[in-house]
């Protein structure tokens, strides 16, 4: 037990919220909006209509002259009416699919580190759904020396609350470290101004533990295919859990810099460097407070 940051739980949540890069609160009034299911009749989606006040106000004589079309409007016959509104099978209207999906493997990499040998890491996320509501899957994990050190999988329901932000709620399953553990998850993710890809999630687990994970990524285009991607990730916890190597406060802070080459949009190998700092119990548990390693991997999406 060394230098972990002591934070009361409230402060931890406050910090997380402060770290959220969006004024999510300002959108709360919209958070319940459901464009796929809402009753459109109750929403002012009808086009703006207004009679032309200018025309109404102009001289009546002039106006009445313009009230009759130069070519008279034909009087419809019953045949015209039948042709205009034929009986239709409502299934004949074909729509493009409204359900889409994406599976993105952001990191699938080999890691090298002088002292600790080599390891592997992955981070993937995917969604399936419409433009507003999506089912999200996220997974992150690390292996070292042939042993899986951490692995988790999240399943979340995500809903757009603004053009750039989704709120997510669901569960996370940790497979490592320690015994499997299930968390309830609540988070936000999206594209912050200046195009910072951002996510922050709060997890509530057994034993009253609360943890938070926040991640920010940015892309610097050296060319349109050679892209430098800085990435920062932090995890925080509300309580000490020595058995699991979790300490109260900031647990880990990770910074990465990856340079990828997009051979195609879908396939981009990369190299990079990753630096991780562990604090408090987390550092004690891992046996080292700082870890820098080189990485090489691929980024793909399907």
């Amino acid at each position: 037990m060394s230098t972990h940051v002591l934070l009361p739980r409230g402060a931890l949540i406050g910090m997380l919220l402060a770290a959220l890069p969006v004024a999510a609160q300002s959108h709360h009034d919209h958070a319940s909006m459901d464009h796929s299911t809402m009753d459109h009749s109750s929403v002012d989606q009808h086009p703006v209509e207004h009679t032309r006040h200018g025309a109404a106000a102009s001289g009546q004589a002039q106006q009445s002259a313009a009230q009759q079309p130069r070519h008279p409007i034909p009087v419809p016959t019953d045949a015209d009416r039948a042709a205009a509104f034929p009986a239709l099978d409502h299934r004949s209207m074909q729509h493009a699919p409204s359900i889409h999906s994406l599976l993105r493997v952001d990191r699938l990499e080999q890691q090298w580190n002088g002292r600790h040998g080599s390891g592997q890491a992955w981070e993937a996320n995917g969604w399936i759904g419409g433009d507003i509501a999506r089912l999200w899957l996220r997974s992150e994990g690390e292996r070292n020396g042939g042993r899986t050190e951490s692995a988790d999988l999240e399943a979340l329901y995500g809903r757009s609350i603004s053009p750039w932000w989704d709120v997510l709620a669901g569960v996370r399953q940790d497979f490592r470290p320690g015994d499997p553990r299930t968390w309830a998850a609540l988070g936000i993710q999206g594209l912050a101004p200046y195009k910072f890809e951002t996510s922050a999630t709060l997890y509530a687990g057994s034993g009253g533990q609360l943890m938070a994970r926040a991640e920010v990524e940015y892309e610097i285009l050296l060319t349109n295919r050679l892209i430098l991607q800085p990435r920062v990730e932090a995890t925080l916890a509300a309580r000490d859990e020595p058995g699991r190597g979790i300490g109260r406060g900031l647990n880990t802070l990770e910074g990465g810099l990856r340079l990828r080459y997009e051979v195609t949009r879908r396939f981009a190998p990369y190299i990079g460097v990753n630096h991780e700092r562990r604090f408090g119990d987390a550092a004690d548990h891992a046996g080292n407070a700082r870890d820098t390693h080189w990485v090489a991997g691929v980024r793909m999406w399907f």
Partner: protein
Amino acid sequence: MSIVSSSGTGLPALPSRRLFVQGLAAGGVVTGLAAAGMSPRAFAAAGRGLATAPQVLDTPRIALAIGESAVDFTGHMRPAITVNGSLPAPILRWREGQTVDIHVRNRLAHHPTSIHWHGLLLPANMDGVPGLSFNGIAPGEAYHYRFTLKQSGTYWYHSHSMFQEQAGLYGALIIDPIEPPPYHADREHVVLLSDWTDLDPGALFRRMKKLAEHDNYYKRTLPDFLRDVRRDGWSSALADRGMWGRMRMTPTDISDVNAHTYTYLMNGTAPAGNWTGLFRPGEKVLLRFINGASMTYFDVRVPGLKMTVVAADGQYIHPVSIDEFRIAPAETFDVLVEPSGQDAYTIFCQDMGRTGFAAGTLAVRHGLQAPLPAQDPRPLLTMGDMAHGHAMAGHGMGMQASSGHEGHAMPMAHGADAGHDHAAGTAVQHPRSEQGNPLVDMQGNATDARLDDPGIGLRDNGRTVLTYGAMRSLFDDPDGRDPGREVELHLTGHMEKFAWSFDGVPFAGAEPLRLAYGERMRIVLVNDTMMQHPIHLHGVWSDVEDAQGGFHLRKHTVDMPPGTRRSYRVRADALGRWAFHCHLLYHMEAGMMREVRIEE
């Protein structure tokens, strides 16, 4: 859902960039495939691969068979949807006043189909939109179209089913006038431009939903930023990047799909195939330009020749002499040229984003070619294009939260376009359905029709470029009434989600726009996106108004550049349910469509 079957991943193998852009010289349609019952592979193995020009069908009774054929534009045999085995579909040539009978048979194995006669005035049940005008044509079945031609000019026809238009189902439709035209031409050629992809069109749609910016390989880079710093200074370069960054937008987003996906065709021929239209020196040649592309704006010129535009969307205009015109998907322009002094002229049609081109030749005999001009520099969107930089995203976190627009009122400062009577001096009112709407990533503040603006990438290029302002119908307002009411619709979208809509409400959840039979009304469109949209209203004309709100130009498809507010008059003299949509195919399928219902 896919329309043409795709093998494997739906990804074509990567041909060389040049081959991809220029296509194959010998590429084209391999006819008779469906009839022969052969797979494209077997057909290719048989060693046949002749490109066929579309036939001209000019009798009032015709039969069209929609089927699958193999084409090879890039070195890869791919399935296409064709009419009578040709791509483009046959040129239909009729006469004003005729009643035509068209038997359309669906020979596709699995998919319903349809044909829409773009720009034609006809009964709603002949309009060919499944779900609005009829039930579509099921596989193996036929539909009998019968209507009387009430107009003349250059039009086209295409499928209105899913993505079949992208797969090749489009053709020219020419209606000769009863009265002689107000110009003289010694000969004429149809120039039908289109975009071809080896991808299954459904896969392309799915790709755009995953990564809409896939084809934008022209984003500004760190070296570009450093260049701008050297040129303009730190504060200016940072302010510019900051503005775009806060909006999460990219000024190089000119088109969603470009030559990284498309090979551009002229009359079904890739540039390397050199489609050639013949002339004798001194002749007046009428070129009937039709943009049958799914997603591509073309900027067209014939270096060395002045062009005189005599009709737009089939309707005569006062002749305008120009060097270049931009043609939106679904628009048609009739253009007179008088080639002489050279044996060959290139018809050069670069895409709006300057990533590729369609090209062919006007020549005194086959086999000639004139030099290809260099492509223009790629344009960048300006804050002016984004409606004066008043995109809501630019206001930071607030996004659509502010609806009053106090302090956003823009002075009308666009020369001839200033003083648009019903917009002057007023700030834009956005519909409530746009506010807080996750599908609306920006809102413009456009108060201006910009009819005299040549458009993105065409300003100050040293050439005389056609504008909507320069085109004026040859006739007075055929209706003559002032609009009795006005309906304002905003074009909205979300670039990253590839979601498109009117007023933030996609087609699937939208109520029809109801018009009273016989009324003369005005539709005002405000482009709240950073993309350009050609908006097509079926069944009736769209009479574009000038800056004073008067009748100006009769169109069936009204182009809406970003940052514009344009209005047009509609005479609701056609009962029925009509489609009203963006003619960028994938925008329509992504939701930028409404039903317009004209009822008694």
